[in-house]
């Protein structure tokens, strides 16, 4: 299954519906080249989850926690762009512990963050010359059954 996104608003709208279906323990890996719109999509995810704080690419701190009011599921937004491809470089972020209460979204996490959770969804964004995007999915664990519920 693939979907087409024509504008940045489409990416936010898709992110929002993905965010609404996220639960604690979910790992979402956003893959795609620079400028594909991974952070924009994460903004939508945060909106869909109803978490607080401004979403921007956490390249300096690598991870930012957006907590949910009333103790709901928090969003941990990770940018692994700078890292060398070794999960132990992420150890300090204690994502294993975060996943007990949060959904974790990792930009540039493919080939790195997979061991963190069996319930993971790879979202691959392809950017075309006319600036439209094609999004495809690679579901694992419970996402195999859940991916069909995405719009």
């Amino acid at each position: 299954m693939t979907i087409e996104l024509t504008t940045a608003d489409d990416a936010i709208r898709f992110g929002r519906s993905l965010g609404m279906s996220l639960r604690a323990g979910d790992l979402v890996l956003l893959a795609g080249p620079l400028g594909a719109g991974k952070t924009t999509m994460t903004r939508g995810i945060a909106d869909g989850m109803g978490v607080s704080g401004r979403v921007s690419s956490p390249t300096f701190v690598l991870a930012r926690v957006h907590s949910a009011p009333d103790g709901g599921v928090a969003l941990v937004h990770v940018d692994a762009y700078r890292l060398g491809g070794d999960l132990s470089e992420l150890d300090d972020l204690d994502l294993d512990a975060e996943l007990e209460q949060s959904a974790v979204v990792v930009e540039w996490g493919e080939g790195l963050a997979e061991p963190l959770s069996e319930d993971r969804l790879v979202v691959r964004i392809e950017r075309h010359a006319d600036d439209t995007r094609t999004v495809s999915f690679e579901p694992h664990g419970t996402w195999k059954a859940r991916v069909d519920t995405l719009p």
Partner: protein
Amino acid sequence: MAKIIMGIESSCDETGVGLVAAHDDGTVELLADEVASSVEQHARFGGVVPEIASRAHLEAMVPTTHRAFDAAGLSMSDVDAVAVTAGPGLAGALLVGVSAAKAYAAALDVPLYGVNHLAGHIAVDTLQHGPLPTPCLALLVSGGHTQLLRVDDIAGAITEIGSTVDDAAGEAYDKVARLLDLPYPGGPPIDKAARDGDPQAIAFPRGMTGPRDAKFDFSFSGLKTAVARWVEGAQGRGEEVPVADVAASFQEAVADVLTAKAVRAATEAGVGTLVVSGGVAANSRLSTLARERCAEAGIELRIPRPRLCTDNGAMIAALGAHVAAAGHKPSSLDLSANPGLPVDTVLV
């Protein structure tokens, strides 16, 4: 009699331990400022790697404390209070400093003050220039922070007037340095390259300066992208990239926006003093432009010396001294680090 305050900083990649004397007349004197940095270990990643930073803090904490006491010629039993950065910063890095501070405070049986890193960057100025006139404004620019703050009381009343909506200024320096094949951290090499360049050569955009933009917020993401596009364009045409001109024009765009907004905020608020601090405050163009514009506007400018502007323990000790002198209640020993500590919380 003067009180001796020990300060511990570990929010990012510098392990800092400082010692200050808080005198009865309200002045705070610097006695020792020891820093161990893991910056070289992060260089190849183009930015701080939290796991590496935390490991380095653990290794450096006690040796750096040793060095601070040696440098000051004091013994641990001379300490009257321990202050520590409780946030904001990297969670695991903060944890090391906060844990050490609690242990020192418990073993020495003295009060513990968990304080705000950003407020520390302002308080450090009192070590060099004496008590802060209040209210004043502070512009904090570093790898992780870009903020414009109003200070009514360094020990308790700090409010945010504006901040970056995306990248910090220092982060933009690091990314542009990478584009230009200059080393990490990007501030010093860009500053150096810019000396031989023309700051007007390329008109890079000034973020958040449109009529509908928030007056005192900043944005550096668009500037970074504009530099990337410009460099890619030149490379695509097979031209040699004029590194000095790109560096100078980029630096001009950063310094222009930062100083224009800071001076405008001070003027509008009728505040007579501006403090510029944080790692990027050492940048030569930023300080020159700030000096010119503050002079024009009749604002007193205070910039701590570069060593005090970057992360260190002395700034935390200085803030601890002001907080203790104000008579605030010490922190509890079950204090936890808060990576997202808001700037208006000076003491946890």
